[in-house]
């Protein structure tokens, strides 16, 4: 697929950092033997992406922003002691964690337990490989980027399981069992939701999806609101964020599979949890929110900056839900995935497939029709959710929200016989 280039591809044009790295890679390719280039290429890409995206956002917007924002939600200040506005707090935390002793339970499985954080870290970094940051800024433009993302994001579940198993702690085992059971359930509606996107944009590559959205000037998130919401719910379940953080439910099973971890081993889990959340947010920004494109605005603003901003706006949703919602029980979560989200995702897929067929065959790929579809789909989303919820017997207004009031003390008052 020919990529539409920016106005200039000079190396000093910071709107696309690829302009800067490509001459460097060319130089490497010309002067160094190809064996070394194979090693150097990923290394440069890794360091660049880490510097541009993972490290700064993780430390300063992930950790600091989350703590600051959740502090404001909880009507407190958040970190404000270390450095100006508490900005150096994440670094102070990291130093503190590194100084702590890394404990291993005597009866645990030390190999598995120590291996788990390492296995947990690797996929979080690998996930960013297929996220396009700009027209040329993509580490690996795999033509099955969507599948790659799904495949790699199924690996941390194993690490969490290993952590829970190796700790030889009952709470940890509970957490491991819960995360394994949940990840299988939530993968299904997630894939079905993303299938609709792949169907409509006619691409399995993330860059292709961004280009489609740029071409037709519409965001998939608005075109398929059901898929967007299902993606958000499923991914928050897989990431263990409230309201679905049952695998490390603090008030029930202490910290789930993290109970026995301490020091930097715990720090890796904590940091990479945010790393996964950021990766999932970047994925959502790419697939549903137009990626680095922004209705022509990306001509003037660096596209990678657009993506980063969108990513963090989406990540804010995670923090917001975490700060406000209680946690569901595991059987309720399972029932929600299988009884509610799966049928709704199937209905969405049917709807989207029909529209795609109509759009290509009957309407000859007219842009205006996309906006019509958008309005139809938003209406349909509300309708489908409402109808299916009613079918499952959910009635929001049937619950009393005020206690009954009686004037006089006495014995048992049957329902409906109170005195106001």
């Amino acid at each position, binding site marked *: 697929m020919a990529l539409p280039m920016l106005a200039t591809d000079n190396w000093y044009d910071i709107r696309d950092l690829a302009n800067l790295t490509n001459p460097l890679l060319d130089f490497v390719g010309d002067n160094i033997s190809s064996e070394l280039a194979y090693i150097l290429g990923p290394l440069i890409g890794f360091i660049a992406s880490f510097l541009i995206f993972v490290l700064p956002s993780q430390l300063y917007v992930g950790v600091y922003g989350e703590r600051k924002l959740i502090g404001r939600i*909880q009507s407190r200040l958040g970190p404000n002691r270390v450095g100006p506005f508490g900005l150096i707090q994440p670094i102070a935390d990291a130093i503190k964690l590194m100084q702590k002793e890394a404990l291993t339970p005597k009866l645990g499985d030390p190999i598995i337990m120590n291996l788990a954080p390492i296995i947990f870290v690797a996929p979080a970094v690998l996930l960013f490989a297929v996220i396009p940051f700009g027209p040329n800024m993509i580490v690996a433009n795999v033509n099955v980027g969507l599948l790659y993302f799904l495949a790699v994001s199924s690996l941390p579940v194993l690490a969490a399981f290993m952590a829970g198993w190796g700790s030889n702690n009952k709470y940890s085992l509970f957490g491991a069992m819960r995360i394994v059971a949940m990840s299988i359930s939530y993968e299904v509606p997630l894939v079905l939701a993303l299938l609709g996107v792949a169907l409509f944009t006619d691409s399995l590559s993330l860059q292709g999806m961004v280009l489609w959205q740029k071409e037709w000037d519409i965001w998939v998130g608005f075109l398929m609101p059901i898929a967007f919401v299902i993606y958000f719910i499923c991914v928050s379940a897989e990431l263990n964020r409230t309201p679905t953080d049952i695998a490390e439910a*603090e008030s029930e099973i202490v910290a789930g599979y993290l109970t026995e971890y301490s020091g930097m081993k715990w720090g890796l889990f904590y940091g990479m949890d945010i790393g996964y959340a950021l990766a999932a947010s970047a994925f959502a920004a790419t697939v549903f929110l137009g990626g680095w494109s922004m209705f022509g605005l990306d001509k003037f603003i660096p596209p990678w900056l657009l993506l980063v901003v969108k990513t963090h706006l989406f990540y804010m949703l995670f923090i917001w839900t975490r700060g406000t919602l209680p946690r569901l*029980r595991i059987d309720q979560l399972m029932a929600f995935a299988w009884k509610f989200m799966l049928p709704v995702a199937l209905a969405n897929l049917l709807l989207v497939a029909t529209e795609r067929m109509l759009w290509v065959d009957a309407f000859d790929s007219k842009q205006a029709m996309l906006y019509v579809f958008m309005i139809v789909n938003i209406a349909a989303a509300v309708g489908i959710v409402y109808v299916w919820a009613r079918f499952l017997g959910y009635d929001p207004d049937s619950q009393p*929200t*005020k206690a009954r*009031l*009686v004037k006089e*003390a006495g014995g048992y008052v049957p329902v409906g016989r109170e005195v106001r």
Partner: protein
Amino acid sequence: MTDTIKSEPFVLNIGPQHPSTHGVFRIKATVDGEKVIDAEMVMGYLHRSMEKLAEERTYVQNIPFTDRTDYLSSMSNNLGYCLAVEKLAGIDVPDRGNAIRVIMAEFQRLASHCMAVGAFTNDTGAWQTPVMWCFREREKILDLFEMTCGARLTCNYMRIGGVAFDLPASFVPAARKLVQTLPGFIDEMESLLVANEIFIVRTRGVGVLTPEMATNASLSGPMLRGSGIAWDLRKADSYCGYDKYDFEIPIGYRGDSYDRFLVRLEEMRQSVKIIKQALDGLPGGPHSTQVPLALRPPKGEAYARVEGPRGELGYYVVSDEGPSPHRFHIRPPSFINLSALKEMTVGGSVADAIVVLGSIDIVVGEIDR
């Protein structure tokens, strides 16, 4: 075909150190997968033998002990003990003293229910936000306590025959200002949680207590009222002139955890209502009657109880005409409210057990004394 065998049941220790046991309290739960099939309570980690110690101290010296049983509602504890001794010795309290006692007890109920509601929502998994909001309001109430008696948590404010000091001049305006803002806060909590779908599914039908079960298990307070039994000692046995105030008893529908939560929220509203009336009709006169420091009540016994935030808070005092009580027994509501814990948790999941424990609203200092 042999009998079907499920996965191995194993014992899960919830506590003594656990984020949701609200202190050093332990449930030995036997679980089968996620399902609790047996629950045994282990307590006593905080036992300080207060009942024994009280037998060696004079009646007045015992008031600070009562602060430290239920450390979240020390005013109510002081009140219950003072009422018992007054009943034993036949001492009358002046009107102003009674009104101040009512104001303090109701503020204490508000502060304690703030903690109860916040901790309960924290147990359901609302990560700290409601707790922090509740703390914010509770701090304001504790500021008032500090203004009155110099202490925030262990107030030691009530005395036999009245209260320790008269209210400072700035108290009434400050209290009025606070009472104006509190209903808004309760509305805020309601809008955050009451109609929250996740909160409802987590608490509806969890830990259901029928009225018969609740009565039989000697429960009291919001636990009893959540099951639909209209029983409030402020109404039934109006001590301290509670019959002068106009308020209502909130009761629940089915006796589940959600009902208990609703009852607590509504009780906060009613407390605000009572405080408003008490502030409006605050009588003049002395705040306390003179009582000899070395009080020697006549031989006999008295059982006085107040409606504490957690339920019926009773004090049973036996006198042998000595300077210290012959027997001093506290009827701790959270201890006795635990009687129904096993019935409520067995059959549910571990997550439900935590919610049930949160809805009981235990204070371990009071359980173990």
